[in-house]
């Protein structure tokens, strides 16, 4: 009889176990996990931009020294900080921007006309080459190092941002240049950071968001306009950085 008691107890406990672990207990399915995006420069998955380092510096042509801004460091720091925040939001934390600022302004060996940035109001990268060449041979080691490691740092992607004491904004060979006036001038400062962001993303190979177009009117008058092809920071520059963004198409081409 004892064995029957034991058998019954085993059956009861087994039934309890089934009740406890099976009845009313959901089977949980594992959904496929979103893999973390491997962000990269525009159109080139080989070059990661998980970590971007910006070296900021203040470049003053020899003939513009008196125009130099004493508060240039704070200005540049604020702008880079804002840029870093903007970048973090756009890339949802998959890409991180850090920066260092060379603490001493770099005075150019030549006058402003030599650097030719007057004509780069809308960005003429080819004229920046003189600045870039000079920085490569700069007495400042940080500047030389930054220029030497441009674009393909082993642990992070290196970019140089030049706050230029002059007129113009451009980007070439991972160097983004922006006029100090765009950052501090009363008519520009609301969207100076957006300007910088625009040029910065050019250094990540993002293409222009506007094109030169011709607009025709009923009287056959035609005028040249800039037509927006993208309403984001690559197309619309004259908006505060708080309002700006990178389009989904751009982000998609950068690995998101």
């Amino acid at each position, binding site marked *: 009889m004892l064995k029957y008691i034991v058998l019954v107890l085993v059956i009861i406990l087994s*039934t309890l176990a089934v009740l406890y672990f099976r009845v009313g207990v959901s089977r949980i399915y594992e959904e496929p996990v979103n893999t973390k995006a491997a962000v990269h420069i525009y159109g080139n998955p080989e070059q990661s931009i998980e970590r971007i380092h910006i070296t900021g510096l203040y470049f003053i042509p020899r003939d513009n020294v008196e125009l130099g801004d004493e508060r240039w460091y704070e200005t540049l720091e604020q702008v880079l900080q804002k840029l870093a925040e903007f970048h973090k939001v756009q890339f949802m934390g998959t890409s991180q921007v850090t920066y260092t600022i060379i603490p001493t302004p770099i005075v150019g060996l030549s006058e402003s006309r030599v650097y030719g940035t007057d004509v780069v109001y809308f960005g003429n990268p080819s004229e920046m080459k003189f600045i870039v060449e000079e920085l490569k041979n700069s007495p400042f080691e940080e500047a030389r190092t930054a220029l030497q490691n441009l674009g393909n740092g082993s642990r992070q992607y290196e970019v140089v941002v030049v706050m230029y004491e002059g007129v113009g904004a451009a980007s070439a060979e991972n160097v983004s240049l922006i006029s100090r006036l765009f950052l501090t001038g009363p008519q520009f400062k*609301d969207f100076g950071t957006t300007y910088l962001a625009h040029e910065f993303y050019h250094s990540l190979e993002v293409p222009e968001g506007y094109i030169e177009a011709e607009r025709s009117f009923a009287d056959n008058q035609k005028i040249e306009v800039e037509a927006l092809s993208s309403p984001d920071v690559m197309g619309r520059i004259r*908006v505060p950085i708080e309002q*700006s963004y990178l389009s989904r198409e751009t982000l998609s081409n950068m690995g998101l």
Partner: protein
Amino acid sequence: MIFQIRTFLFGSKIRNKFIFFFIILACVPVLVLGGTTLYFVDVAHRQDVSNLELQIIDQKIEEVESFFENTLGVLEIQVEAIETPVGSSSPWEPFLLENILESNPAFKEIAFIDTGGQESAKKSRFNDTPQLLYVKDLSSFQTAIQGRRYIGEVYFTLQGPMVTVAAPIVVNGVIAQVARAEVNLSSLLRSIATAKIGSEGRMLLVDRNGVLVSDQGSADVPPGTNILLWSRVFRVLAGETLTGLAARDRYESLFTSEAVVGAGKQIPDIKWALLVEWPISDADAVVSNIRNQILLITIVSIIVVLLVAPLFAARLVQPIRTLERRAKEIEQGEFGKQVEIKTGDELEELGGAFNKMAKGLKRLEELQEEFVFVAAHELRAPVTIIKGYVSMALEGDAGPVKGQMRKFLSQTQAANDRLLQLVEDLLQVARSEAGRITIEVKPLDIRKPTQETINQVQQLAKEKSIVVRYDAPSSLPNVLADERRITEIMMNLAGNAVKYTPEGGHVEISHVGKNNKVITSVKDNGFGISEEAQKKLFEKFYRIQTEKTKDISGTGLGLFITKEIIEKMNGKIWVTSKEGQGSTFSFSLPVAGDKPPVPQKSRTT
């Protein structure tokens, strides 16, 4: 201890049956009912969860659609009131835009665009003088200029998620302009965040491209992440409704890795998706509670049954055990005791019937004993007379006896002797059972009656060439015994030893003092006794029936009488034997003390 517990719990078959059936009766209904309840409660609960989730989703869909309807409606309604020549901007436009911005906090920027794609007026909360742009190539313009509403992709700014919307401005049935606005979704997302699903549920808003819009993401899946590859998002955006009832609607959350139950629907007007996730630990709490209660009740029931069933069984088993013990006593001949069963039920009636049966058996035995006594007593006289006359005839008192006559008379004499012995034995048994036998114990040197017995047995032993050896110890304490009875005992044991030993064997008699007793042993190397026969050896009329012993005469009463006499003298008798290897009959008697012995009388009946 374990053995005692086991015996207490399971030492009774009825008790085991009680425990068995109690467990079944207590636990099976709980399990069946509980399991059934749990199953149906779970089914109903899942439906409730699904209904709740879908209800919340429908509520929020309404809010989202209303948000966009109002947003686009504002653009359409307001501007339809204006008659504007195509291609030029009206001086009223800035004021109108200003008005729209003021009355719609979600609007961050609004612009009118002519049919050529040139912004004709614009107002922005971020910029007092926003730049008028040529937006012919933007999809928002291209969609709206074709007469369709436009809701763009969600983009994320430092001030939160935004979306571009655009609507055609129709004047007199002709699309005159396009109104385009940048709308902040923060207020909409705050509304979605307030959706309460249990205490830990979450709601997710996903745009048509699979981008997570709502801010209830996680560190690994923040807002802005494209989760289109997640099958649930893909299916909902494709138009499928996830009810939360399917097996796959219970899954590991992408955001928290905990088990959740999820539902989802497409927002039909804008083709976005709304999904909800509710942690199963929160959603199914009620079902878990029921399951735990069933488990607890069942385990408690088992424990109670294991504790209580033996007690119930004991109440039933105890009277039965009492009856069993009493039946064994009756089997041993003790008819005097009564069973006391006071249970107030059939068991008490059984006890009463049992007592009556015992009385009846006692009366029967008394009648039987009386009969045997009377029969033996009455038989004794004629048997004795027959013995006398046959002896006289054989001696020639009635004339010469020879040949056949002598033979007949000799056989008659032998048969009569056996009959006389049987009568004597029966009389002795009857006296013993009637309590009429007299035993007078006094200090006795047992060696003397033993020697006398051997002298008597020698003749019989010589006939079979059996050697009888007696090593009387030089000193032996006296025993308390009746001398005459000791002689009877020794005659019986020695006589049996000679009878049951084949020719050429031997019989040894010895004494040993031990533990205040004197043990006397009669050992032979005869036929031996099987273990089965040893159990019945001292019963009335029992005789060993084997091939070797079938021709040996006897009444079967000798050992019974011997045992009775020894026990009346406060002694014990026992046998050790092995079939084919002889037997040793031993009995012990108490050593006589200093006090003078008290004569042992028979017990009264």
